[in-house]
């Protein structure tokens, strides 16, 4: 499960992962390994990590770690699990028809969904686009509601 994928607990580790992944999509999952939905997502990530290994890297970040709270705030992570996509240290946004384009919230239904999403990110990044469209149909995208503070 998460034994296959690297779990990061410190900001320095996260930094090095982001900086060292060159010309590949980096998927950072923020979540708690004990959470049920997170476990589901981790399962899918672990199974597909090898298949996308040529153009993507997957890493898990533990939200509960204190060192990483900077990133939790910076990336506005409130709902778990959240996956943030990077390419060459640049953040890739994805328009899934949800309110938050900056990350993917929730788990994936199938391995193929995850691979499709990563592929869409990769193709867009190679063309120089910072925001890509989600290839999945709306029924397979987990829905959530964002409650905004200070609104």
């Amino acid at each position, binding site marked *: 499960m998460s034994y296959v994928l690297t779990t990061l607990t410190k900001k320095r580790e996260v*930094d090095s992962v982001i900086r*060292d992944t060159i010309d590949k999509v980096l998927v950072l999952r923020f979540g708690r390994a004990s959470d049920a939905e997170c476990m589901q997502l981790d399962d899918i990530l672990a199974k597909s990590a090898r298949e996308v290994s040529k153009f993507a890297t997957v890493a898990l970040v533990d939200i509960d770690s204190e060192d990483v709270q*900077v990133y939790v*705030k910076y990336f506005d992570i409130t709902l778990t699990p959240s996956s943030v996509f*990077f390419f*060459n240290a640049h953040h890739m946004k994805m328009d899934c028809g949800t309110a938050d384009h*900056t990350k993917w919230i929730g788990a994936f239904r199938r391995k193929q969904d995850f691979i499709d999403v990563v592929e869409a990110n990769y193709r867009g990044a*190679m063309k*120089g686009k910072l925001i890509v469209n989600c290839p999945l149909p709306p029924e397979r995208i987990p829905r959530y509601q964002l409650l905004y503070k200070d609104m």
Partner: protein
Amino acid sequence: MAENWRGECSNPNAKTLVPGKQDDSSKKNKKKKETGSQFEFCTVCNLNHDQGQRHKYFPSHKKSLSACLSRFESKLADVRFFLRNPAALRPEHASRNRFWCIFCDVDVEELGSSFACSNAINHLSSVDHLKSLKHFMWKYGGGMDRLDSFRILDADVTKWRKKCATLKKEAALSEDRCHGPLSGLSNDIHREPNIGIVDHFEDNYTVYPLKSSILNGVTPLQYNTNEQQILYPEIAGGPNAGSLPTKLVSSNASLHSADDSNGVEGNVHSGAAPPWLDSSEHSLVDYNIKSFSVNVASHSNKLEKSRKLNPKRVGAAWAEKRKIEMELEKRGEIAKKECDSGWLPNFGRVWQSGSRKESRREFEMEKQTLLKKETESEISKEIQPYISKRIRKDAAE
């Protein structure tokens, strides 16, 4: 209308077209009468036109003509080099020395010539060539003042012939001087490639006498460098002139490596020393070259890969910089930089307006305000032990 079209019309449908045209307005008929000449083919522009004599003054034609002539002139430059410095022609290189003379519409090949470009020189100085050159210039409007740049004058040819004769004499003398008994053997070895080449040439091809093929290091037209030029007179008179091909290789390895770009001896790709460096300098240069070639090889691989990657991709500049950094870190030239704790990646926040740098700045500001708040709250939150009223009263008293 019909009488303007002469018998030799390149357009076979002309006659069928013409009756239709007769129904048009008189203006068109007048136009037809003016141009009215047969279709000609312009070799310079490579098209058929019916503009007759006017065509050579059109700007498009002038452009193509100047391009054509400059191309031919550059080819002639090579020939002129060998006119000034005659050198013997080796049979293997003969096939490389031919060129197409655009004025005479003839392919000038270097068969049966003992000196480089001798056929070309003879052709360019001939009377026929001059005639066709004049005709070409008249037909295509080249400018009769430039005739001499496309031919070789008789005076130059005679000079060249004298030089060739002296070269031949020198070669004969040197050949007699040394390696008399071996000449038989070396003849056989030299003739092997010649026999191979005979199949390719149709005309009478004669096997060269040893002397001309020994005048070694004769390179085809491509190599015009002065270094080569300097090497020729040295070698022509040198004692190695009549040596076997194996000796040729060893003593003139530099020349051979210059000759064949994919030679066995060594080339740029295998990291061999360039020919202009002495053997004494090899040791110094070898290390540098080897290390450089390794770098070049690995760098060229990377270059190929990065060439395939879209330069417009996201974060391309950053990726290239980072790759170089990592390469240097690997080699240990730069100590691994621990990125500072304040580094944040490029992130676009949810409620972001403007560029992503702004989101980072916003975040930094938020961080600072948060910190301030925390410190303030810490100061205010001083936990004090509970003192009962009675004790306080007593203390006050």
